[in-house]
């Protein structure tokens, strides 16, 4: 191999694997780190994601632990939820996501194998997110759900002239995970159909709530089953539609968003 060959390969690799701006990631990790007790000496118990997604979602929100551990684990919950949602949204058989069962068929086997442990905080968060998304009705797949900047030309109702909602950090509410928006994470990569989604930890002891930020053309108009134990609150902000999914009786995260 000549030096020219080697240089050409190396140059191609540098072009294709240029490290992206990771500032948003740093901020999220710093927020997560800030949530941990500084003098913690014990590791937080986490479960293998495989095990988490095999367990059935809880239907009893009263079982949700209201402790600091909830916040520290919600990130894992989102990962678990995202993994679980692959089952819901992959739809190889053409099942409409709006009518798909939120519980994988393999759940029965798992219930028999692990029926006793109470739901962990990240299972609760995952179940919350799953229920929300399984009842949301997004535009059909024929319409590009990419953000406005990725669609050329932008759809006519894809207006961003007012600017996008911005999260203002507050002690009582911290974003612990986010996709879409200014992050480099694409929600669809997690099989999350939302344009922008945040998991917000409410201080001091939780719970965690989910905030979705949608342009009006992607308003999913979700509804939850009456027995879900969660509430959905809707608010408009400029041209955007905000949803907060929460076990509380009032939205607590909306006020941190502004344009």
């Amino acid at each position, binding site marked *: 191999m000549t030096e020219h060959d080697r240089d050409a390969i190396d140059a*191609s690799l540098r*072009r294709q*694997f240029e490290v992206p701006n*990771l500032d948003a990631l740093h901020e999220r990790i*710093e927020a997560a780190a800030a949530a941990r007790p500084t003098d913690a000496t014990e590791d937080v118990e*986490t479960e293998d994601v495989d095990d988490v997604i095999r367990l059935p979602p809880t239907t009893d929100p009263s079982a949700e632990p209201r402790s600091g551990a909830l916040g520290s684990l919600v990130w894992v919950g989102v*990962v678990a939820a995202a993994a679980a949602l692959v089952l819901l949204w992959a739809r190889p058989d053409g099942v409409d996501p709006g009518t798909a069962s939120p519980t994988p068929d393999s759940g029965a086997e798992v219930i028999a194998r692990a029926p006793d442990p109470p739901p962990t905080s990240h299972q609760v968060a995952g179940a919350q997110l799953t229920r929300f998304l399984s009842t949301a009705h997004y535009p059909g797949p024929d319409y590009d759900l990419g953000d406005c900047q990725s669609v050329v030309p932008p759809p006519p109702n894809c207006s961003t002239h007012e600017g996008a909602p911005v999260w203002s950090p507050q002690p009582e509410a911290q974003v612990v995970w986010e996709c879409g928006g200014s992050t480099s994470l694409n929600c669809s990569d997690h099989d999350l159909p939302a344009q922008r989604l945040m998991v917000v930890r409410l201080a001091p002891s939780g719970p965690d709530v989910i905030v979705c930020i949608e342009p009006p053309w992607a308003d999913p108009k979700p509804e939850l089953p009456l027995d879900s134990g969660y509430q959905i609150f809707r608010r408009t902000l400029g041209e955007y539609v905000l949803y907060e999914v929460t076990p509380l009786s009032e939205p607590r995260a909306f006020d941190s968003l502004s344009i």
Partner: protein
Amino acid sequence: MPHPDPRSPRALTPAAFAARFRESSRVLWCIAAGVLGDRTHAEDVLQEAALTALDKLSTFEPGTNFEAWMSQFVRFVALNHRRKHARRARALHEQARGMADGGSTPPSSTAVFDAGVQRALDTLGETARTCLLLKTVVEFDYAEISTLLEIPPGTAMSHVSRARAKMRELLPEPDAPPVLRARRAP
């Protein structure tokens, strides 16, 4: 075992972790991309690895190399991700290849070459791919790669050399006219 790191005299606090992570994220991203074989999910993997590591801070041995410790989480999460998403990734890859091969606008020679490099990269093993990216993208020397991936420096060098040679065999002539590239094709 990770080599001693004089910058870590005490146990890692969450805040110190975040600071060290910020310093190391570029290298760790490269490891994630190397194991995955593409850049699409590298940041996702990095996040998951960081959060997992945050919950396991007590496993960090003060005085050892933070990047080497962290790279274990990154590689583990990336391998898991690759295993879980291999099927989907193959489908997307084929789709992308179809777009590159069958588009109405002829792709540039650079785009064709890059696509070939990506395909050739996919044929390498995770370790070889990671060694190659650490060498080319972040310009690590073999000793640094050795420390990060916990392999002998000679092995790192061998991985890079063989990876380049194998990729070269699979690639069209860089900057060659299309007719010559066609003649090289089997």
